[in-house]
């Protein structure tokens, strides 16, 4: 079931990559550009001015592709809130001479700190080679450089990979641009909403629907290891957890339970799915090994235990339970032992949807504050300390982490059956952005970095 190789373009690209592979250009020593660094761990940072001209290309087609590649990279960097791509109209050096050698005095005049210079070339085998260099403008030094051989149809993905490498070079953190979002597309009246599984690139491109809306679907989550999603479907009016292979379209129900199964999430190794199962009104937490189909029960309590999520090491889980009188967040060992409450909120909040950060250092959550009637997205340490609220609204819910643990995406619903939309916000609490979707949207889930 896992890693079924298919004929999709995305897969072709992955297969092509080792052959044409990553050809480093000139990789200079790394001592010269310590000044072109962003520390993104310290709250709000001043966006770094960066110049991303169109990538050079020979033919008209390649010129257009080069322009599009530069555009996607600049937009990725801009949306991160950490970079300020300069207006190309202000550029002094033309593309053809830049392709020979950057005139750093020209770029210093624009106060650009970094310069991305690239090219797109046709290869004899029908592929294109997209190559770039990242320059430290003040030091006049190359910071990074790499070439990618790919099917021309995959230019967008290469652009995201280059943006990730730029982000990594300058921040020292892994990126999150070469990722996808699976979510629930919503349409129709609020009392009888049509909900469909949908998937798109992190920047909204390559949007498509995965289900037709005939069955109610909720809470999709990505596998950390393969092109697979787990989600809740009301297929034939029986709410059950399903697995869905994005590449093949193959679906299967997870396990055979007498009651509703819901709130699924993969384990970090992708080999298990943890979920809640309801029996006679009582929800408890289970996990199923996808290889052996063996099931383990992790909680056994008359309360509603739901929304389980593994820690990135897989040795613990966090979950929500109302066993203390109102819904709160708990952690436990992966075998169900040592269940400890971690959220308290001075008795004035209900907490749900805990999601462990990919770094392991934080748990993101939804909080309903009984004091003001608002919902919040926040984070706390896995021991419950250091709670910080990042986003607030009439109804904000269901945070999902970027794979580098620096950005959260969630959905926000307006009152009175108003619009439901996706937003992202940095862990610093700054840089809130709407993720534009063709229809209303909820339940976002961020993919890992594409392999």
């Amino acid at each position: 079931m896992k890693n079924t190789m298919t004929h999709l373009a995305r897969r072709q690209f992955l297969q092509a990559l080792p052959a044409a592979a990553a050809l480093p250009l000139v990789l200079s020593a790394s001592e010269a550009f310590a000044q072109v660094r962003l520390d993104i761990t310290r709250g709000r940072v001043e966006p770094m001015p960066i110049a991303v001209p169109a990538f050079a290309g020979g033919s008209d087609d390649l010129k257009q592709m080069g322009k599009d590649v530069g555009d996607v990279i600049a937009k990725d960097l801009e949306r991160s809130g950490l970079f300020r791509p300069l207006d190309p109209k202000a550029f002094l050096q033309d593309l053809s001479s830049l392709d020979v050698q950057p005139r750093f005095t020209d770029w210093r005049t624009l106060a650009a700190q970094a310069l991305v210079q690239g090219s797109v070339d046709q290869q004899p085998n029908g592929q294109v080679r997209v190559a770039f260099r990242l320059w430290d403008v003040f030091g006049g030094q190359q910071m990074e450089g790499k070439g990618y051989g790919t099917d021309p149809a995959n230019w967008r993905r290469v652009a995201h990979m280059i943006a990730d490498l730029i982000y990594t070079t300058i921040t020292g953190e892994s990126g999150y641009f070469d990722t996808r979002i699976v979510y629930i597309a919503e349409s129709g009246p609020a009392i009888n909403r049509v909900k469909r599984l949908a998937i798109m690139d992190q920047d909204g491109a390559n949007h498509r629907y995965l289900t037709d809306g005939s069955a109610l679907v909720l809470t999709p989550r990505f596998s950390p290891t393969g092109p697979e999603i787990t989600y809740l479907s009301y297929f034939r009016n029986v709410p059950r957890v399903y697995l869905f292979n994005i590449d093949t379209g193959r679906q299967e129900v997870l396990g055979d339970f007498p009651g509703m199964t819901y709130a699924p999430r993969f384990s970090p190794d992708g080999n298990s799915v943890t979920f809640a199962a309801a029996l006679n009104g009582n929800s408890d937490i289970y996990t199923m090994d996808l290889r052996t189909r063996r099931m383990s029960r992790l909680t056994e309590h008359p309360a509603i235990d739901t929304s389980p999520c593994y820690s990135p090491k897989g040795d613990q889980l966090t979950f929500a339970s109302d066993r203390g009188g109102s819904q709160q967040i708990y952690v436990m060992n992966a075998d169900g032992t040592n269940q400890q409450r971690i959220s308290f909120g001075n008795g004035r909040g209900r907490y749900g949807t805990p999601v462990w950060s990919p770094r392991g250092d934080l748990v993101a959550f939804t909080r309903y504050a009984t004091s003001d009637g608002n919902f919040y997205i926040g984070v706390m340490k896995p021991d419950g300390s250091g709670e910080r609220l990042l986003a607030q609204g009439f109804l904000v819910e269901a945070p999902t982490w970027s794979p580098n643990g620096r950005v959260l995406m969630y959905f926000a619903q307006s009152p009175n059956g108003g619009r439901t939309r996706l937003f992202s916000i940095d862990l610093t609490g700054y840089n809130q952005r709407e993720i534009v979707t063709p229809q209303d949207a909820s339940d976002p889930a961020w993919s890992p970095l594409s392999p």
Partner: protein
Amino acid sequence: MMKLRFLGVIAVTFAVLLTGCAKKPVEQKAVATQAPPPAPTPPPAPPKGPAPDSIEYFNTVVGNLVQFAYDKYDLDAASQAKLAGQATWLKQYPNRTLTIEGHCDERGTREYNLGLGDRRANSVKQYLIAQGVAANRVKTISYGKERPLCVSSDEACWAKNRRGTSVVQ
């Protein structure tokens, strides 16, 4: 759901018409001047009302909805009385089965509300079983906050949405 709401609208309209007629003073006077009315026939069902074994009768006369308090799943006296009526009706028509839908208001996370809706539906089911309805005639399904009856963000609407709906098959 569409069908249920549709039936509900018809029932309400019908009730309004009946009330409208009954309140006309002229007719009351006319009746008063008549000879004493004939003794009521044993089944006093109005000739135009739904047949007692019909889904419409169950939904409108017996009542198919019970309400819940915020984040609660216990049944108050009014709900218990209504469910006693449902149980009586089910025992009277043994070929009928029920699916009980548990629903929640929008003031909770999706996943918690799925659990809460399941709890509410089972609360209704257990009450019916305690009244003598066979367990295999009653199924449950939780819709959490996915199928509200109304969409205003106020307490009146939220209270309406916190419900157990008995759907007759």
